[in-house]
C-alpha cells in the first residue's frame, strides 16, 4: 500500500469518514497538493508508525495544538481523541495540565472548545 493509501485509511479511522469526505469535497486546485501532503506525511508517514499507540498520539497532538493556539484543529482532534480511546475525563486531565505549561488563558480557550465538542457528542 502506498503512503497515500495508508495515510487515507488512518486519517479516516481517526478523523471519521464524515470529516474526510467534507475535506475531499472542499478540495480545490489550489489546496489539492496540500491535502495530498497531509495525507502522505502526517497520516501516511507519522500516524501509521507502530512506535506509539493512537491514544498516546492523540495526547501529544492535543497538547501541541493547545500550546500553539490552533483551536479549530483542537475541536477536530478532541473528536479524534475520543475515537482513539481517550475518555472525556482523560481529555480533561490533559487540558488541566496545559494550564501549567501553556498558561491559564490557553487552557481556558481549550476547555471552551472541548466542552462544546464533548457536549455535541453527549460525552459531558
Amino acid at each position, binding site marked *: 500500500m502506498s503512503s497515500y493509501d495508508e495515510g487515507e485509511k488512518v486519517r479516516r479511522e481517526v478523523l471519521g469518514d464524515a470529516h474526510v469526505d467534507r475535506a475531499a469535497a472542499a478540495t480545490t486546485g489550489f489546496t489539492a497538493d496540500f491535502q495530498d501532503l497531509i495525507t502522505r*506525511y*502526517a497520516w501516511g508517514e*507519522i*500516524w501509521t*508508525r507502530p*512506535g*506509539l499507540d493512537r491514544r*498516546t*498520539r492523540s*495526547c*501529544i*497532538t*492535543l*497538547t*501541541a*495544538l*493547545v*500550546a*500553539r493556539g*490552533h483551536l479549530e484543529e483542537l475541536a477536530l482532534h478532541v473528536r479524534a481523541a475520543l475515537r482513539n480511546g481517550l475518555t472525556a*475525563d*482523560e481529555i*480533561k*486531565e*490533559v487540558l*488541566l*495540565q*496545559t*494550564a*501549567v*505549561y*501553556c498558561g491559564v488563558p490557553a487552557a481556558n480557550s481549550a476547555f471552551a472548545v472541548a466542552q462544546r465538542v464533548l457536549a455535541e457528542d453527549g460525552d459531558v
Partner: protein
Amino acid sequence: MNTAPAETRQDRFDRGLEVLTRVDGEGGQKVIDSLADISPELGHQVVAWAFGDIYDRPGLAPRDRQLVTLGMLTALGGCEPQLDVHINAALNVGLTPEEIVEALLHSAVYCGMPKALNATFVAKKVFGERGLLPVG
C-alpha cells in the same frame, strides 16, 4: 477534586515535593534550590501547584503525563532547560528512549520540524548522559 478545603499551603507543597522527587529526581530539586535566593515563591508554586496539584491527580498515568508535558514543551519552543528535566522524568517513569523519540517525531507534524529538532537534540544530550545512545 483532590484538594480538600482544609489543606494548607504547606500541605500542598509537601505533597508536591514528594511527587517532584519521585518523578524528576535530583533535576527537579536542583531547579527549586536554584530559585532560593531570587524567587523562592516561584519555586514554591512550581512544587505546590504543578506537582502537588496537577501531577498528583490520579486521572492519567505518570507516563501519560510526561508525554503530555514533552508535547507542550516541544510545541512552546524555548523550553529546552525544562525539556532536559522532563526527558529525564519521562525515563524515570518508564518511557523508553524509542518512545520519547517517537513522540518528538510525531510533534514535528503539529509544531514544525525546527521545534522537533531542538527537542530531539535535548533528548540526545540526556540519553548520552545516561548511556542510552544509540537509540534503536
